[in-house]
């Protein structure tokens, strides 16, 4: 992927080209932004609040790996016209597909629960009880998908992306030394601190989740993007990834310039929003609150939807937002169940929330390597991709990225199972 390759769609800079680009725009931007969900925002807030600007340098490699992985999915979608689970089923058989789907269902359910937790926490900043906000949010998301068509849903999602600008606004209202930020963004640092390393891995881990590849590819297919228009879609993917990481940067910066400088301890994204109030002002706190609610709501819509999508695709059941309960029952029940379970877990007192998140995180770590490796095998399959297989250089980059992601995810998963494992390892190496 060279620069000339990138701007190729715009070489003939005309009104028509711009229009085509806006028509194709969507899948990449939406997918990358859902990535900044409740879990992501929490991680970024904590990274900024605990380690100041020192973790900013991780964002650049994260962007690159995100683009590499998502670009391959978008390309497969455009070339084959099939979703990722479709390709996995056809190339690797029912058994592998079935177990991957079960795993994905579990991890997405866990993620959906954390999105509803994000909504509850975000609304509580504004004094709304979770008994009101969570059922309302669940209903809203459910209605949007059941009653809307793909075009409407996409438009709503694209609009939700704009609300992420709340974070840059919040960061700009804080007292930030931008020179320091710029320097920190390109200066790697490796202190022998277990918590720092764990946070470093967490940053990458929240950014690349298995559902994203499926969702990206499915929405490229649903949109009917073909090889001829693929140049624009690649641009869409890159813009989306860059935008998502820029939002992450502003979250880290806002928390670093305020909470970190004051040395306040925080545990969640809602803590961060509340901590901003005395430091920057009430509206900064509100902006953070709105950002969290929007991100959680957005992801609470996309995650159940994408789960339903790829499970139905793999199993050969009818699917599509434009269908209904009667002609695509499995599709509609799957995401209804995800939403209901997600919302109920938050509402019912005494639900083992932490245990659920724990299982979800572990399953996530186990399934991601499989998905990434299968993906690389598929994209290098000439029978499927023809002339659009990876080039040798890109392929090397892709394998290195995937390998690095697998190692990082494995570490993160092990640290979830045996807390403190990374700290022990770091101190062991530093000795």
């Amino acid at each position, binding site marked *: 992927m060279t620069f000339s390759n990138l701007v190729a769609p715009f070489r003939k800079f005309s009104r*028509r080209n711009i229009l085509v680009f806006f028509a194709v725009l969507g899948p990449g931007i939406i997918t990358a932004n859902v990535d900044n969900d409740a879990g992501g925002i929490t991680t970024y807030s904590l990274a900024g609040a605990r380690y100041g600007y020192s973790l900013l340098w991780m964002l650049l490699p994260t962007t690159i790996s995100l683009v590499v992985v998502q670009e391959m999915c978008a390309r497969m979608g455009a070339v*084959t*016209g*099939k979703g990722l689970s*479709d390709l996995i*089923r*056809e190339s690797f*058989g*029912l*058994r592998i597909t*079935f177990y991957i789907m079960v795993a994905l269902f579990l991890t997405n359910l866990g993620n959906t629960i954390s999105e509803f937790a994000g909504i509850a926490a975000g609304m509580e900043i504004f004094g709304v009880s979770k008994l009101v906000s969570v059922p309302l949010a669940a209903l809203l998301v459910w209605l949007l998908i059941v*009653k809307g*068509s*793909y*075009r*409407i849903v996409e438009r709503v999602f694209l609009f939700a992306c704009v609300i992420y600008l709340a974070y840059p606004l919040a960061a700009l209202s804080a007292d930030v030394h931008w020179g320091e930020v710029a320097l920190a963004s390109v200066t790697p640092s490796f202190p022998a601190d277990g918590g720092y390393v764990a946070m470093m891995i967490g940053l990458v881990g929240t950014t690349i989740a298995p559902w994203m590849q499926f969702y990206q590819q*499915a929405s490229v*297919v*649903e*949109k*009917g993007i*073909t090889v*001829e228009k693929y140049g624009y879609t690649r641009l869409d993917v890159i813009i989306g990834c860059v935008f998502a990481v820029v939002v992450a940067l502003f979250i880290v910066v806002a928390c670093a310039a305020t909470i970190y400088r004051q040395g306040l301890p925080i545990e969640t994204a809602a803590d961060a929003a509340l901590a901003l109030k005395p430091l920057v002002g009430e509206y900064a706190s509100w902006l953070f609150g709105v950002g969290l609610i929007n991100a959680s709501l957005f992801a609470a819509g996309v995650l159940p939807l994408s789960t339903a999508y790829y499970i139905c695709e793999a*199993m*050969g059941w*009818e*699917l*599509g*937002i*434009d*269908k*209904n309960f009667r002609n695509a029952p499995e599709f509609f029940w799957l995401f209804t169940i995800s939403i209901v379970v997600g919302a109920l877990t938050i509402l019912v007192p005494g639900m083992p929330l932490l245990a659920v998140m724990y299982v979800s995180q572990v399953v996530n770590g186990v399934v991601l390597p499989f998905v990434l490796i299968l993906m690389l095998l598929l994209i290098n399959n000439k029978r499927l991709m023809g002339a659009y297989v990876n080039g040798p250089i890109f392929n090397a980059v892709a394998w290195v990225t995937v390998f690095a992601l697998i190692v990082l995810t494995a570490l993160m998963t092990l640290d979830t199972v045996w807390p403190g494992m990374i700290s022990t390892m770091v101190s062991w190496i530093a000795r």
Partner: protein
Amino acid sequence: MSEIYVSAVLGRPVIDPAGVELGRLEDLRLVPGELLPLVSGLFIRNRGKRHFLPWGAVTLFTPVVVSARADGLRVEDAADADTPDIRLRRDVLDRQIVDVDGAKVVRVNDLKLRTRGANLFVEAVDVGIRGMARRLGQLRFWNWLAGVFGAKLPFREINWRFVAPLDLNADRLTLTVARERLTDLHPADIAEILAQLPHKEVGTVLGSLDPETVSEAIGELDPELGGRVISQLDSEQASDILEEMEPHEAADLLGDLPEEKAKELLGLMDAEDAEMVQELLEHEEDTAGGLMNNLFAFVPPAMTAEEAINYIRLVGAEVDNIYYVYVIRADETPLGVVTLKRLLLSPPKTPVAEIMTVGLKAVAVDDGPETIMEILSKYNLLAVPVLDDGGRMVGTVPADDVLKMFLPESITRKRFAAH
């Protein structure tokens, strides 16, 4: 005669008569049979190598044991790998196929084989939950689970004769039955199947149908999706299909294509058809000019009822709505309209000028859908004539096309969701 599910035999050991294991069954090669596809040999994997065993060498083929004489066994060579053969696991299992009876696209979960004499046939594909459970080796568990709820797992097997594979190679395995049935489907059903297919495979299905059926099916698609289908085909085939379509449908389609592609296709079309379409393309999409159909039935005022009926018999095949026959002066301005009913019921020698309804309700070329709808509903018309700036009649807008624009988006989009 016994039946065997492929899921039960794949991966099983294949032994020779002495009981020595030759390898594990990996795949089956299929050839077209008289009625159903025939198994012509087995692929066996042994120590990382794939071997081919012709069917003639197989002595026993049951879910419990597969045995064969080892003399036919040979390592798969480059020639085997290059021949465009069809393999059951690689090309059929887990693939999407068209269920011609149900008019939808389904996925193959399992295949039912049947022995008849010395031969082994593919009899049916299993597309249901039963096949899935069987593949996973959990059929008993799922049966038990269903039993707990007082239900039975449904059988969903489709006879091979009623499926149309989407793989070009595997396609040779079906006889004409599925194809004929596919052509017999209602164009709206074909359109729905097309909308469910990955864009690469649309060509396979279309290639097996005649241009007339294809043009009707594409006309049923949402123009955006239809345009995509057309641009996937080679230009020669695409222009043939466009010629068969009604000019206003073809124009809608071309309007959604990139300009160069549209010009190329127009150039390849028959000059007369192309001109009709070109005329419609010049108007804005959401105006009477863009919605209208420029083929309509018209007669001069001096014609008699009998002559008019004969004339309609002659040209009617080309015209969408023959119920309204417009009476038009030599300068193409309309005088009135006469219904087919009126023509049939009047004495044969009456000139149409005497039986026509005057005071024709018409719309202008640049009128919007609201204006057209208003006139259609106010006067209870099936179609409304469109006049250009000089008052000449250039086409008619049928009521159903305008109606579509006023239906809620959910109804119109529901049918042809692309995914």
